[in-house]
């Protein structure tokens, strides 16, 4: 553990929240945008101490802990390990980019928009760094409110339906997750996630808590039967909303699987793995097939997200080293490429005022820079060698083939589908006829500025993934070792039928006894 003395994670969580209050004192729209941009840059600066992350250990680092509600043993407890740190970097990076990509896109209620944006970023950093179950749940749910408003206020024509569906779907999914948290607490007497990881749970307990948690995470990912909120939300959300949705929100689900399901309920994870793998493969194939038939660019990318996230869950639930590493890399890479693709869709929407592919054809001749970026992110999205998508998809596939040839063979068509729908989209955008783009201007400096960092990351992670892999490796090794040792232990110990819930009942003191 590195003790820098400076509360890096708390600063990252609370600085945007405090800065959001500062927005109330600003009036001019341009000042508000500049202010939020500066806040984003400062936030990136605040993240700099995280580069002192120790690559050799799987321990949680930058840990801060202080009592919160002593009566229920709740703590304010944050920290990062290899699984979460990259997501925090991604979250922090996206804030200034989102401000830039909304510079002209958002024309009304500018102050409130940036307010929501800042709240979102604070809550998202909180989710990826919380090490207390209640703290995690608070960020997990609190994040819904600004996201709901982003869709409901600044969304497209069908925003009411989309925002309501998004909110109810995700909230309903996580209600049982709350019951699971309560059950974990009553069972062990603690909300601390690292401490919960060291406890033993009976199989029956794991069975139900896994189901409750997996439902919440599967809706967030989203996995196949629970994915219907995603296209609606993506299509209606403003660009920045789509970017945050695709790059960060979806990752919370898979992060939840890695952080909670595997370490806390290993035996149940093992038990349900065939189900999760099946759903993942269905998501990959179904998402890809549906994406192939879309006319709306945002819908196409939204369904491609379903397929790409299927690779993440597939990688997680084959429980191989490369599978899990690939899954984490895929989380990052999908965040970068899909976020960038949504920004590009937003950029072209400002020119054509339509998201239909048919209205945005033939850009290659008139907007070469735009097509360059689009082509780069599109090929990264389907995993072209040399881009970041290739690294993660290859790792996941290697992991899957290590586990089973059959599963690997089933996943391969998903990769081909990805190439098919992305190339179809790129082809039409670049050379489709008739083109209306003759009068449109190519990317301006502001658009260059927010696309270039992501393009650099695509190539950097594609050509030199070593540093990222080194960062996640110790944590993944630790995670899988723990998992391997405890899943077997559990299957044996669960033969003795002793539900721990009963012992708590006996030990709990009743008020009447005093």
């Amino acid at each position, binding site marked *: 553990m590195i003790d820098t003395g400076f509360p890096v994670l708390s600063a990252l969580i609370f600085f945007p929240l405090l800065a959001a209050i500062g927005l109330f004192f600003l009036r001019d729209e341009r000042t508000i945008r500049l202010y939020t941009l500066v806040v984003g840059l400062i936030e990136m600066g605040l993240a700099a101490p995280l580069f002192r992350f120790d690559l050799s250990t799987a321990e949680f680092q930058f840990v801060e802990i202080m*009592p*919160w*509600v*002593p*009566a*229920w043993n709740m703590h304010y407890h944050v920290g990062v390990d290899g699984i979460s740190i990259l997501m925090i970097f991604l979250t922090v990076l996206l804030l200034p980019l989102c401000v830039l990509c909304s510079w002209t896109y958002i024309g009304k209620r500018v102050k409130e928009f940036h307010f929501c944006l800042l709240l979102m970023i604070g809550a998202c950093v909180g989710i990826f760094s919380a090490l207390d179950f*209640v703290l995690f*749940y*608070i*960020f997990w*749910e*609190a994040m*819904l*409110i600004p996201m*709901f*408003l982003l869709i*409901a*206020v600044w969304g497209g024509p069908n*925003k*009411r339906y989309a*925002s*309501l569906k998004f*909110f*109810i779907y995700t*909230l*309903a999914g996580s*209600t*049982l997750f*709350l*019951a699971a948290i*309560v*059950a974990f*607490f*009553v069972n062990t007497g603690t909300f601390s996630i690292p401490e919960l990881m060291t406890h033993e749970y009976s199989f029956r307990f794991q069975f139900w808590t896994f189901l409750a948690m997996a439902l919440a995470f599967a809706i967030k990912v989203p996995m196949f039967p629970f994915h219907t909120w995603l296209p609606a939300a993506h299509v209606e959300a403003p660009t920045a909303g789509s970017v945050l949705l695709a790059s960060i929100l979806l990752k919370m689900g898979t992060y939840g699987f890695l952080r909670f399901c595997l370490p806390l309920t290993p035996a149940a994870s093992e038990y349900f793995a065939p189900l999760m793998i099946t759903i993942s493969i269905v998501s990959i194939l179904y998402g890809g097939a549906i994406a192939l038939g879309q006319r709306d660019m945002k819908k196409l990318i939204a369904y491609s997200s379903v397929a790409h996230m299927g690779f993440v869950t597939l990688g997680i639930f084959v429980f191989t080293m490369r599978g899990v590493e690939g899954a984490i890399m895929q989380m990052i890479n999908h965040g970068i490429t899909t976020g960038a693709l949504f920004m590009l869709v937003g950029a072209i929407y400002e020119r054509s005022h339509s998201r239909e592919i048919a209205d945005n054809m033939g850009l290659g001749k008139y907007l070469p820079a735009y097509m360059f970026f689009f082509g780069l992110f599109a090929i990264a999205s389907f995993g072209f060698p040399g881009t970041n998508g290739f690294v993660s998809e290859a790792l996941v596939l290697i992991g899957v083939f290590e586990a089973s040839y059959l599963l690997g063979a089933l996943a391969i068509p998903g990769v081909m589908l990805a190439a098919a729908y992305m190339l179809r989209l790129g082809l039409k955008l670049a050379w489709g006829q008739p083109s209306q783009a003759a009068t449109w201007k190519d990317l301006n400096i502001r658009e260059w500025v927010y696309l270039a960092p992501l393009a650099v990351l695509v190539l950097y992670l594609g050509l030199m993934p070593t540093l990222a892999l080194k960062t996640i490796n110790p944590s993944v090794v630790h995670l899988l070792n723990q998992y391997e040792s405890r899943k077997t232990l559990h299957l044996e110990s669960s033969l003795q039928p002793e539900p721990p*819930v*009963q012992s*708590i*009942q006996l030990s*709990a*003191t*009743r*008020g*009447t*006894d*005093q």
Partner: protein
Amino acid sequence: MIFQIELFIPELYLLALIGGLFVLTVGPQSWWRFLRYLPLAAGVGIGVAALSFQFSGLMLYGAYQVDGLSQFFKLAIFLGLAVTCLNALNQPTLSEEKRPDYFLFLCLSALGLMLLSSAVELVTIFLALELASYSLYALIPLRSKEPAAAEAGIKYILFGAVVTALAMYGLSYILGVHHTTYLSELMTKTWSWSEAPAALIGLTLFLGALFYKLALFPLHFWCPDVYEGASNETAAFVATLPKLGAVVVLVRLSTLLDPSMEVTMLLAVLAAVSMTFGNLSALVQNDLKRLLGYSSVSHAGYVMLGIVAGTAAGLAAAAFYAVVYLLMNLACFWVICRLSTDGRNLKLDDLNGLYQRSPGLALVLAVSAFALVGLPPTAGFMGKLFLLNSAWMEGYHWLVIIAVLNSAIAIYYYLNLVRHAYTREAPVTASGEVQAVPNPGLLWGGLLAAAVLWLGVAPATLFSFAQLAGAAAGGVLP
């Protein structure tokens, strides 16, 4: 000890206030301007109650107990009284000459609730409950030119009278079987169906009076009608403070209960039915006060989670939740009262574009709505979490699961409030302008919302007081 004046300070303070109000009612009209200092005086009461936290003792021949629980609730009652008085100061549907009387009854009802929080003997409880109720009977119809208010008043009186009579009847059973009405002695008696069926029937009937106050299913039916009929400001009082009184007595009575008893199981089932029924009914409401009425039916169910758990932790959670409920409901009603400048009932559509008409009020409404759902980072979430924890500890797994699933139902109609306020456009006047809300009272509304948020982020302090209250309820002094 028969009487100790220092134990009685908060009640005496309120009595003095009531005396002052009585003088105003009979005095010349020029004195009525003093009424505007009433919220301030009630606010001072919060301080008085806080100072009295250090005292504890038993008086009036063991019928009146001052302890952590009672002082905690007295503080909450003063808080609620201050806010409701402030809220009702410029009530549009109250004729000028009734103004002092209105506040007199308001304070009398609060006094009844205050006595209730210290009563540890069934007859005392009954009398205090009646003092609180009779004042309300007079308050509800006080809404000028509104026949519905008279209907609501009659409904409340008639049903209230029936329930009271049943409670009295139940009390006679308890007295007949166990030969005492002191809770500390009743604690040691048996309450099982097989050994003392008559006592159990009596207890159930007596609890009925409290369920009526709390609006717990199946004695909830008056709630939406009365809220709808009464003026907005009166509804704000009826919706919040009497619930505190009911919760405090239930907390005291829960020392009689045990998870193994039939009546506890009955309470658990009623809690589950109440929250589900309340939420489902609220889904289709169009009138804001009816919606909040059904919402309070479901919240009565949530509070019961802590009562049926019966542990010190559970009772503390119930006490905590009662205060949180008070704050979030008052915040919600604050918005309604400010918005309804002519005192009419508001429909959901009246919230349209509230964001444009008064951004501050819209924010207060959003905070209170999300708190009522139980969404973090508001106090509603923390209160619910504590209740769930305590209920799960006692093995009520099914009840906890029903409770969390209910949030998924409830989110729709609470979110609807926010959607109307934020995503719909405000109606425009003929000149094409949006009419701003006059006198939004943002300072107090904002303070309520801030309190709801603050208790969600840092609940530890209030909860430690609630724990004192819960621990006090655990052991009734001999």
